């Protein structure tokens, strides 16, 4: 078990200096994610223009894996179409859980999360932001901000 695979420099950097940290107000979509295992919570607010995610901010506190994953996600999805984000969501899920997975599309800096799959107890830390993003996108038409959980 090599923790350097998990705590790569990119992860440590994004944990120390998270990108797109904060809150958008007003926002087109918002959701609160919760990891009952550790009590961590994470909020995602976003804006959508012409089926493209134009802006995203996340907020909250959590471990290095969850902070870095949210920060990397915020960079990866900004400017992407909703269809591209859905495909990316699928790819990241496979990347986090399937040891055999070889991505069909270049995932760029998100590949820094590949080490997580060797640490099953930490997969939820990395996936929380993606579940929350999905909930925030789904909420755009719903009345009250939903809360999602990794359980």
């Amino acid at each position, binding site marked *: *078990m*090599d*923790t350097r695979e*998990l*705590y790569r420099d990119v992860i*440590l950097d994004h944990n*120390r200096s998270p990108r797109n940290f904060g809150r958008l107000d007003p926002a087109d979509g918002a959701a609160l994610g919760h990891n009952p*295992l*550790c*009590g*961590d919570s994470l909020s995602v607010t976003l804006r959508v223009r012409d089926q493209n995610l134009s802006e995203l901010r996340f907020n909250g*506190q*959590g*471990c*290095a*894996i969850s*902070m870095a994953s949210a920060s990397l996600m915020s960079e990866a999805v900004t400017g992407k179409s909703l269809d591209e984000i859905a495909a990316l969501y699928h790819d990241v899920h496979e990347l986090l859980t399937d040891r055999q997975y070889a991505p069909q599309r270049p995932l760029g800096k998100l590949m820094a999360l590949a080490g997580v799959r060797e*640490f099953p*107890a*930490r997969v939820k*830390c990395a996936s929380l932001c993606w579940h929350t993003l999905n909930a925030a996108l789904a909420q755009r038409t719903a009345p009250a901000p939903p809360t999602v959980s990794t359980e």
Partner: protein
Amino acid sequence: MSTPLAHSTRAHAERQPVFSAERVRADFPILAREVNGHPLVYLDSAASAQQPRAVLEAIDHYATTMHANVHRGVHTLSQQATAAFEGARERVRRFINARSCREIVFTRGTTEAINLVAQSWGGMHLKAGDEVLITHLEHHANIVPWQMACAAHGARLLAAPLTPQGGLDLDGFRALLSERTRMIAVAHVSNALGSVLPVAEIVALARQRGIAVLLDGAQAIAHRHVDVSALDCDFYTFSGHKVYGPTGIGVLYGRESLLAAMPPWQGGGDMILTVAIDSSSYNDLPWKFEAGTPNISGAIGLGAALDYLEALGPEAVHRHEQQLLAEATVALQTVPGLRLVGTTADKTGVLSFTLDGVHPHDIGTLLDAEGVAIRTGHHCAMPAMTYFGLVATARASLGCYNTGADIGRLVAALLKVREVFG
């Protein structure tokens, strides 16, 4: 079977040879294993203590020589199983100095024991406007059952404040007592911080006012002398796996007059005397509260665990753990940015801490890579974490088998965490 014979007098404990944690370690087979290429350092006994060979052998002996259902058959196995199961009950009674085996109810654990009281006692005694008083440092198992009972009967749940060191603020506690208080339910020892609560004072306050008291002893039973007669509490609960026994077995001690008046909790076999389609008559104490086939081997394993601890000498174990706690408290503070949470003068071997700039989960993963097992998170005590403005802590907890070398490995691993995170 290598289970030592039971001795309960303190005089015997004082005749024990000098306590040696190294010799104790040899009694716990799991401590010989490696984790991630390193010899295991187990510092998570507050979550679940490991089991000595004597416990594993007692369970094996039961399963291989006398397993059958209890209280039912006239055949030899059933009689032997019943004798072993009821013998374990007597073992528990002596360990906590209850007056009678009618006061010892086997449960799945502390959680089930508290639920039993909250529902059975609560259903009988809690009315609209009544109050139940707990503290801010309770385990969720001593919060949620009372929330449910209060919601069912229109009662109110109040939580007493803490001191900055993580102990009970006794004045604040006293101020919350009123003529509406029906039940005081508090931890004997905090699971998240290790603080020992002033239970004698709490019980005295309750007695003066005719309030019932439940003590959650899950974190005390392996580390403090527990005498329910001297404590004079109404209910005392604990789990087998916190005291070197198996999981899935626990104990509710209840004052006999209270248990006798309480309605049964769950219905089924073993808790009845006679059953007709329209009504049943209930069994005597303690079986009235033990519906269904009990965890027979768990109870026998628990009895063996109490034998084991008694043979080690609870006083010697206590001294050892306190010495190690003092050592660890000093050693941990050499780690840059480490802050201990829970620093009361009277505490058990629990070291809850935070490390600047590092989330407890990352500490846990990096320590595990070094073979060091600790607990990280909210420790099922979210209100206690919130009280101190925290989401989570890392928690190292000590058992009879830990040594100074374990503390050295913990500190070395924490210094590695510092290296990774800067």
